[in-house]
């Protein structure tokens, strides 16, 4: 059920990126699609009734050095969270590139409308 809502968010972003004619709205549609994919990857590692995957000193058995078994049975998966953190910063860099392309196209053609940009100039 939650995965279907995530897919709906992805479809909204896809609609914006394909149908709209303003260049800034296309960029917003692409960013909504990236948010939906990151949310889906984090939701894959969730466990119902789980705790945060942070180990503190109380859960470490000092004689043997093993982490208590209750932590492994009830924590969510931390690996998707670490990789999605990297993916968010990468999408920030690609957003900067898309915005600079929009700015340069506006300087050359004077409009944000993609139907007015016909011939290559500059």
């Amino acid at each position, binding site marked *: 059920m939650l995965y279907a809502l995530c897919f709906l968010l992805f479809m909204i972003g896809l609609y914006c990126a394909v149908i709209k004619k303003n260049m800034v709205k296309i960029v917003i549609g692409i960013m909504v699609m990236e948010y939906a994919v990151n949310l889906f990857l984090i939701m894959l590692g969730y466990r119902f009734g789980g705790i945060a995957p942070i180990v503190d000193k109380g859960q*470490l058995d*000092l004689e043997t050095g093993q982490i208590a078994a209750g932590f492994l049975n009830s924590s969510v998966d931390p690996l998707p969270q670490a990789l999605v*953190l990297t993916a*968010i910063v990468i999408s920030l*860099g690609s957003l900067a590139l898309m915005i*600079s392309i929009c*700015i340069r196209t*506006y300087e050359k053609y004077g409009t944000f409308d993609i139907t007015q940009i016909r011939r290559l100039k500059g």
Partner: protein
Amino acid sequence: MKGMTIIVKTISSWVKVLIFLFGIYIILFGHLTPGGGFAGGVILASSYVLLMLAFGREFAEENLSLPVASKLDCVGALLFAAVALCGLLYGAGSFFWNFIHQKYLVGTDYEFNLLSAGTIPLSNIAIGLKVAASLFLVVFALSMFRPEISGNKED
């Protein structure tokens, strides 16, 4: 790019120091609490964006000039590569081997302190430096946009 009124300048000169300190805290405690190099670097860059919005772009350029930010960017990347190469050279390990933890301090009871986990805080500092300098340069370059239309339009 002009600055804002005197109320905004006074309050933001206090708040940007707190944002900078919070970014350094997120980077340094990256191996104990959530966060690490990426999130702390973005918070550091956002303190400079606040400086640029409240005081104008020329004041931010006097505070942290463009060649210095470029060199900090390169220093961060080279520090990360040097930490990875030290794992290759010291001991019989591979690339990115945690040589401080495995070779010198493996038996002592020092875990969950600030100075633990070997080369992970060094990697966090290098990544935070690089991300902060890169995002400051990106926002600075985007703020130099002047809305002049070059050439003549057809049709």
